[in-house]
């Protein structure tokens, strides 16, 4: 019963707001003409709609605009977000992580013994892997060093840009 009532309300609100499809609108028009309950409900909702539409706006104090203008005189318009987000830095960070990921993938594939296929058993016992050995490898160390240097360069650029901005503001 309640659901049916809500359904009638929803359909009538859509009709009043002009959001019903043409077929739905003509069906509702017919219902309003022929069904007493629909007619009464429509009259109630339309009355509320018109009342709210004609209600007055609240007004702030007479000094409002003056107060706002006095307040904004203390500030400057901030630059658009796109102006201070440096795309080069975003790209740099992206390249850094992609290099890191690709490097590890290449290294991982390099360690696989491709001729060891065919057995159900894994070619190595994972529990016995000596992870410390990986970081004794010269290539891995060189790769890690490159990444650290890249990371430090990015941090330096970021801090330099921030310092420059602060000096400008001062």
């Amino acid at each position: 019963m309640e659901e049916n009532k809500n359904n009638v309300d929803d359909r009538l609100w859509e009709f009043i707001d002009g959001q019903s499809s043409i077929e739905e609108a003509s069906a509702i028009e017919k219902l309003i003409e022929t069904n007493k309950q629909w007619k009464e409900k429509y009259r109630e909702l339309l009355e509320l709609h018109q009342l709210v539409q004609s209600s007055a706006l609240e007004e702030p104090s007479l000094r409002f605009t003056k107060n706002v203008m006095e307040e904004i005189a203390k500030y400057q318009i901030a630059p658009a977000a796109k102006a201070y987000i440096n795309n080069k830095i975003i790209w740099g960070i992206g390249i850094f992580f992609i290099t890191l990921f690709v490097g590890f993938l290449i290294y991982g594939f390099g360690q696989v013994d491709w001729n060891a296929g065919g057995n159900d058993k894994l070619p190595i016992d994972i529990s016995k892997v000596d992870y410390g050995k990986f970081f004794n490898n010269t290539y891995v160390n060189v790769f890690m060093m490159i990444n650290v240097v890249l990371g430090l360069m990015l941090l330096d650029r970021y801090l330099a840009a921030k310092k420059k901005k602060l000096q400008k503001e001062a």
Partner: protein
Amino acid sequence: MSAGPSDSEIISLVLKGDHNAYALLVERYKSYVFTLTFRFTKNREDAEEVSQDIFVKAYRSLADFKGTAKFSTWLYTIVNTTCITFLRKKRLDVKSLDDERTFEVADNQDSGLRANQVEQKSRLNMVNQAIALLSPDDAEIITLFYKNEQSLEEISQILGVEANTAKVRLHRARTRLKEKMERYFSEEIKDLH
């Protein structure tokens, strides 16, 4: 909305350095912004302070207004977030006034209203009084739709919800407003007929 330069013309003047042109935007939207904030704060002094804060925020981030939506839609998004922050700060009870306790309070307020004010107020103020009895969420969506000339798509953008959710919320808010009107202003409604 009104005659004179368009919103985007005023914004481009402000961005070029004519800060006084911003007063035109404030004049144009102050009542809309104030009405919305008043729905949240339920207090004129707070509404005035929050509205002022909203216009200052809008001014400071004016360079971020891309012009893809109406300026009013962008401005009301700032209104929505600022008012929610205000309510959190004030730790106001944002629950609807639908529970029994608040109905009792409203009943008491109502008897006072009847005696002193409502009889002298126009039917337009009666609607505002009824909207003031709604939760801030319901009052906001009704104000955005009826007073601030926002479509359901724009309202969904302002509130950060789907258009269909905004539609359902609006329907429910209107149903609750109708209930409030019937409960507290039934005599006045009869007089209208």
